[in-house]
């Protein structure tokens, strides 16, 4: 290789884009030729200069607009995926599969599964919208009466602090086409939403477990009420929660 050959390859050489054999030839030449050595130094120097150019990060306003455009222009399932992403980032749970699996949310479902989707959505909305509480109290004797006159039923309210699930409050919610009671419990930093509404059924259904978009869901009935528990706590903890509610 002579200087003319090498000169045309110096940029690719310093970009480490040459075939290994050619790269070796260029290196050998540069190591013995002062002029090409200087040329290479020059190319490298120009690269360093260009890297002094400003890097323009995306403005916050654009980021925010993209987020909004996204929620406006997309279907409910995408919206939920987005909401889920927001919750995910906010809570730094790190469970990435939760967002991934959200794309699968939009499917036709049997009625029970549809309710499961609804309670998970409600759980997500409550956490991201910060409307988790209408009544904020750790006292079951405050929370239970609060629902009086707001619902056509009286939800059972139990503080489970003894079992490690302190009650923190409740709110009115709307699920399965009707107003329901949503009771909020904590497990460490995790929120558990317990949705309760009357459902007369002969069969007492024991806890039915599923996972939707990374949230664990439990559903059971006690003959007069239907219960749905939703949380991102682990399965074992949620089972323990359900067990504590079913004396």
């Amino acid at each position, binding site marked *: 290789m002579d200087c003319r050959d090498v000169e045309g390859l110096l940029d690719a050489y310093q970009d480490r884009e040459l075939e290994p054999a050619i790269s070796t030839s260029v290196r050998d030449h540069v190591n013995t030729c002062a002029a090409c050595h200087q040329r290479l130094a020059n190319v490298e120097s120009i690269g360093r200069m*260009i890297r002094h150019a400003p890097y323009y990060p995306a403005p916050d306003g654009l*980021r925010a607009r993209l987020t909004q455009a996204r929620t406006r222009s997309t279907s409910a399932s995408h919206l939920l995926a987005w909401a889920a992403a927001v919750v995910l980032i906010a809570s730094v749970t790190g469970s990435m599969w939760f967002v991934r699996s959200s794309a699968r949310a939009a499917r036709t479902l049997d009625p029970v599964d549809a309710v499961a989707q609804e309670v998970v959505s409600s759980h997500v909305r409550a956490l991201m919208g910060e409307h988790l509480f209408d009544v904020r109290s750790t006292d079951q004797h405050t929370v239970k009466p609060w629902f009086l006159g707001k619902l056509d039923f009286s939800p059972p309210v139990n503080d489970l602090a003894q079992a490690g699930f302190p009650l923190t409050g409740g709110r009115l919610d709307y699920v399965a086409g009707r107003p329901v009671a949503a009771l909020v419990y904590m497990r460490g930093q995790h929120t558990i939403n317990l949705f309760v509404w009357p459902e007369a059924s002969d069969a007492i259904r024991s806890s039915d477990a599923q996972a939707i978009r990374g949230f664990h869901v439990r559903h059971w009935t006690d003959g007069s009420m239907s219960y749905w528990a939703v949380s991102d706590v682990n399965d074992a903890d949620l089972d323990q929660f359900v067990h504590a509610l079913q004396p």
Partner: protein
Amino acid sequence: MPRSFEEVLLPHLDAAFNYARWLTKNDADAEDVVQDAYVRALRFFSSLRGEDARAWLLTIVRNTWYGRFPRRAGGGVTMVADEDADNRADVSLNPEAQMIQQQTVEQVRRAIEALPTDFREVLVLRELEGLSYKEIAAIVGIPLGTVMSRLARGRERFEGVLASSDIRGGRRGLS
């Protein structure tokens, strides 16, 4: 496992904006281009299969920009004369040392902006974004060999522009 749009493409928002900003040379147009590009990317997201998401997104950014500003996008490229290829500064002068003396990041910015788009974009993708020749070839839609020659020529021209701005500006007092 399928990954979500947010997870895959939002991390590259800065890269998208930086590229668009260098293409358009102003914030407002860059924001418009990136916003449009993301809407398009969302539409075509299902067609993204295992490729490099950043390169894929930057391709869409480029196409969006090209669609919006066809005249500016196409202009100023072919007039590059081969004869002016050798306007690289005297190799005995270390350009980096010159720059440190001048302390002019602004000058670097102006010099890059003064380059025809074809050179500007490969330099930005290579030096600021750190992309490989292969990725650049895919984004810009040119052969690998053209990436190589454009980068080499772009660096030369950059140095030329910088040198002439030195003569016009900072060095006047020396003569």
